[in-house]
């Protein structure tokens, strides 16, 4: 039903607005997560402080696992593949990519919540265990109020409901079937993230600065997204992705479209480009990447891990849907431009990472380069490209989470020791932790027997099959540059002498240990026995129109 039809219906019978039809069962993954988020807010209000941490952790984990079970059940019932549905008045799609990515996001969120729940790394504050988040977010950094809050052993357990809201938004983002729903989802997951960035317990100023930067630039990008939505509505007369595709292919005609064909489609193409900016910002593609290193560095490391993995999954999901559902007819127009973006992203990410001295910034630039690699798969615009990107996102997100979880372990008196020089000789003092980090770095570099290799191979193969061989060449060359700085860290850890008075590796609780263990497990399984997951991704790669 188009917007004009709704208006006409409303005009015909002013007494009743037809109630929208909602498929609660099929939307249950999102509903469970949002419900838990709301419940989390209530927990903050009504549960005594001593019990809040554990209540929030269990609530979040139960809800995420429950939602994941719902996703699995939906998939088992045949939703996604072969059944494809449009839900909630055609605004949400229930198809293969949506279910696959929702599953990935939920698993990632489970692991992220495990790292949030860690309370053994920070020294106890006020006689109570402390986590990675600020004692009191609103207190002035270094001020008397903050010291008092620390002494009192306050914690910001609001991070859990905030994260749940973000997860809910991320679940909706890749499933949104019209531009407005997509925009709402974008805002729902972005706003909690801005807040979460500001909540680091150590280096408060850096954390707050990161949050403000992220917020300002994120708002800027959202504005572009909204602007693009408006332009496309002007062109196609609808915000539904399917309708836009129909107008572009000429199946349906609008006045604006008829005018545009004579006026070289300026409305359409500008709308497309501006919409893309909003998404390219979220995935951290060049030249919309500048926030990434600053925010990754400033945010509390568990949040960075969550952001780096889950945001990327959700944003690439939406990106895929937009370009595979709404704009496949325009691929001759957008592909050359995306080629340029992908090349720039890979090269700039890899080259800039070479001179980084901070582990978190290094991983940030590495994530930029990886966004470029994923873009090569997106550009393929075929089934293979879609499935390879899905697989890559699964593989990449667990490596990222694991790597950032390891970063939380290496500490000195000032908190996490993220300067690379203090990682020298880590392999001598803590061989296990160094070996695990080395494994993640090798996976980032795409060395065989790790998930990184399988994923990279899949996207490059898809890109080559889609006719983008030069892009693959650039991709492989930037991988070579990237391998340099990954392996440099390995060399530093294993072949340099430890610095006297350097950092120590803290012994984590079972939470972080489980998170890292899951990262290692997924990295190895996807590297050694990837076939089942490749098949799954391939099976899931059909969009709803």
């Amino acid at each position, binding site marked *: 039903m188009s917007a004009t039809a709704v208006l006409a219906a409303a005009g015909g019978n002013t007494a009743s607005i037809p109630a929208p039809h909602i498929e609660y069962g099929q939307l249950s993954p999102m509903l469970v997560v949002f419900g838990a988020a709301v419940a989390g807010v209530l927990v903050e209000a009504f549960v005594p402080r001593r019990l809040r941490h554990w209540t929030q952790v269990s609530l979040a984990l139960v809800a995420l696992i429950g939602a994941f079970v719902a996703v699995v059940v939906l998939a088992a019932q045949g939703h996604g593949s072969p059944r494809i549905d449009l839900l909630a008045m055609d605004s949400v799609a229930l198809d293969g990519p949506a279910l696959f990515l929702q599953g990935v996001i939920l698993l990632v969120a489970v692991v992220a919540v495990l790292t949030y729940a860690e309370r053994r790394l920070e020294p106890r504050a006020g006689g109570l265990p402390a986590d990675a988040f600020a004692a009191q977010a609103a207190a002035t950094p270094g001020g008397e109020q903050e010291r008092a809050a620390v002494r009192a052993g306050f914690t910001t357990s609001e991070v859990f409901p905030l994260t749940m809201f973000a997860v809910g938004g991320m679940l909706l983002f890749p499933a949104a079937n019209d531009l407005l729903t997509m925009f709402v989802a974008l805002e729902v997951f972005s706003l909690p993230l801005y807040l979460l960035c500001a909540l680091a317990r150590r280096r408060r100023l850096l954390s707050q600065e990161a949050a*403000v*930067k992220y917020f*300002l*630039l994120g708002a*800027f*990008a959202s504005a*572009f997204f909204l602007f693009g939505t408006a332009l496309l509505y002007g062109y196609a007369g609808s915000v539904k992705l399917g309708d836009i595709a129909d107008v572009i292919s000429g199946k349906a005609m609008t006045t604006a479209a008829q005018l545009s064909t004579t006026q*070289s*489609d*300026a409305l359409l*193409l*500008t709308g*497309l*480009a*501006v919409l*893309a*900016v909003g998404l390219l*910002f979220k995935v951290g593609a*060049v*030249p*919309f990447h*500048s*926030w990434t*290193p*600053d925010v990754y560095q400033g945010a509390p490391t568990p949040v960075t891990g969550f952001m780096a993995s889950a945001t990327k999954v959700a944003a690439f999901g939406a990106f895929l849907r937009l370009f595979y559902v709404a704009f496949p007819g325009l691929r*001759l*127009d*957008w592909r*050359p*431009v995306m080629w*340029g*973006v992908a090349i720039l992203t890979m090269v*700039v990410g890899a*080259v*800039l*990472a*070479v*001179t980084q001295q901070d582990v978190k910034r290094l991983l940030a630039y590495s994530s930029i380069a990886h966004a470029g690699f994923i873009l090569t798969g997106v550009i393929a615009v075929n089934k293979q490209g879609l499935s390879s990107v899905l697989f890559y996102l699964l593989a990449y997100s667990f490596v990222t989470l694991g790597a950032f979880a390891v970063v939380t372990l290496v500490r000195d008196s000032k908190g996490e020791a993220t300067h690379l020089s203090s990682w020298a000789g880590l392999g001598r003092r803590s061989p296990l932790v160094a070996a695990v980090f080395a494994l993640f770095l090798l996976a980032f570099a795409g060395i065989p027997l790790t998930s990184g290799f399988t994923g990279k191979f899949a996207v490059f193969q898809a890109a080559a099959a889609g006719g983008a061989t030069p892009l693959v060449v650039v991709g492989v060359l930037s991988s070579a*540059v990237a391998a*340099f700085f990954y392996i440099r860290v390995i060399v530093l850890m294993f072949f340099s002498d430890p610095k006297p008075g350097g950092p120590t590796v803290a012994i984590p609780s079972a939470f972080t240990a489980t998170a890292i263990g899951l990262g290692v497990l997924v990295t190895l399984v996807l590297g050694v026995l990837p076939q089942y997951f490749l098949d799954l991704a391939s099976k899931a790669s059909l969009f709803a129109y």
Partner: protein
Amino acid sequence: MNSLIPLLVAAPLAGAALLLLGGRALDRFGHWLATGLAALSFGFGLVLFSDLLGRDAEHRTVTTRLFSWVPVNGFQADVSFRLDQLSMTFVLLITGVGTLIHLYSVGYMAYDERRRRFFAYLNLFLAAMLLLVVADNYLLLYFGWEGVGLASYLLIGFWQHKPSAATAAKKAFIVNRVGDLGLSIAIMLMFAEFGSFAFGPVFGGASGASEGKLTAIGLMLLLAACGKSAQVPLQSWLGDAMEGPTPVSALIHAATMVTAGVYLIIRSSAIFDLAPDAQTAVVVVGAVTLLFGAVVGCAKDDIKKALAGSTMSQIGYMVMAAGLGPIGYAFAIMHLVTHGFFKAGLFLGAGSVMHGMNDEVDMRRYGGLRKYMPWTYRTFAVGYLAIIGVPPLSGFFSKDKIIEAAFAKGGTEGWILGLCALVGAAVTAFYMTRVMLLTFFGEKRWQPDAQGNAPHPHESPSTMTVPMVLLALGSACAGGIFAYHDAFLKWLEPVTGHSEGNPPFGSWTVSGLTTACMLAGVGVSYLMYGRSPVPVVPPVGSPLTRAARRDLLQDDFNHAVLVRPGSALTATLVFFDSRGLDGFVNGLAATIGGLSSRMRRVQNGFVRSYALSMFGGTLLLVASTLLVRSF
């Protein structure tokens, strides 16, 4: 019965695994466990032997397939075993002598703190050597071949705290690599030619292959044999290998592993019989090494190195016999077995002497030891008489047959080979008499060492003397038993074949000549070392003596011909690598690094610049999208 064949290998292999993985818990009884498993393997060997004896001569080849090892289409390698008269002979030699030497080592290594590891390596060696001789295809044989190489490396360098031992182990390993390369190339050639490397298809297909290809395969096999059996030109490692504990020298570097080359040649007789050029090469290598080793043995003052030279020379006899074709195959093996007895006995005797002499190895510091070590003296004397070929001890029968076969080759070739062998017999008698006289006769020449500890020569414990006595029995009787009604020849004939050749004169003449040469060698030696006192400091000697002391300049030769050009080549490559390739690579890295530092400046931390770059990027994106359409 076939199922026993894998157990032959499995018993010592299990021992090695247990001892290496078992940890300190096994320290107290691990050596007995290893000895027991070696004996168990010997027991299996005896059972299989009696089984084979119970069959007709034609049905004594037993094969059994354990599992498919490399199941690739067109490339099938099985773990399958073949037990025939040839491999049976080796199995009994390896496990029999091996068990005795395990027993000896219990006494010899009693005070070594890494004893458990030593026995683990010994068991590993047994397993690999047994695998080598019972393998039914060349790939599995290669596996065993590399396994004995590994065990040899580990045992030569067993006292790794001594730099000389570590170096010797590396030297042995590297020289053997050259030979191993030959074996691997031979296997590849076989696969290319016959489409298989199992014994059956290869030997069956040999008659259909061109002589050139067979010669190539034969020469590569010879190269392999040269490496493992320390034949010229790959002989240089054996002398240094004496750095290993003496039981190792006895088992690996005298009785068994070094004879693997002879086994390889005789096992591949189907190929060599059809490649006369390769056979000639084998004969030449054997004859040269025979004299080379003998000359080296004459000049060495280190008792083990003198014996090592002798080993080289005796294996030269075997290789020469193996190169003679069906005339010599059986005699090569016969000499191999008798040599296994007497040379192992001699080494164990040398070890016993060293044991009683504070590990002194210089024979010029021995003298008159027969009173102090009666059993060592007696067993060593039997081994001595056997090796120089005094009738009716073992060496007489086996060596005599080889010399006879050399003459039987016929023509000029036969005369040359026969004379070489005769000269070798004389020189053998000379250097062995020298060893005997310097060690057990004459007056005492031992002196306190640097710390002032005078040696107190004493007889070794019974765990050491019992194996020596048993080996002495073997050295004394084996040859006679083998030669009785040509029993050994008849036993091996179904596998190796036999022909009489054209001897220019009767076997009694040869025996007479050999005995005369032997007596001459003993006489000269007695005149030089028995009549007059032996100086503790070696005299300067003739140029030949000096060269022989340096192993006939083999290391100098290798250094000049291989090491120096090799180093020069490496240096050149390093030069080009560092100036050319590295220059390019480093330049590239520096460029990227520089680019990176310059690009970093854009990341200035100001959110306004970031927003500006986003805005610029958006403009660029919109403009280029529109531009693409206009093309």
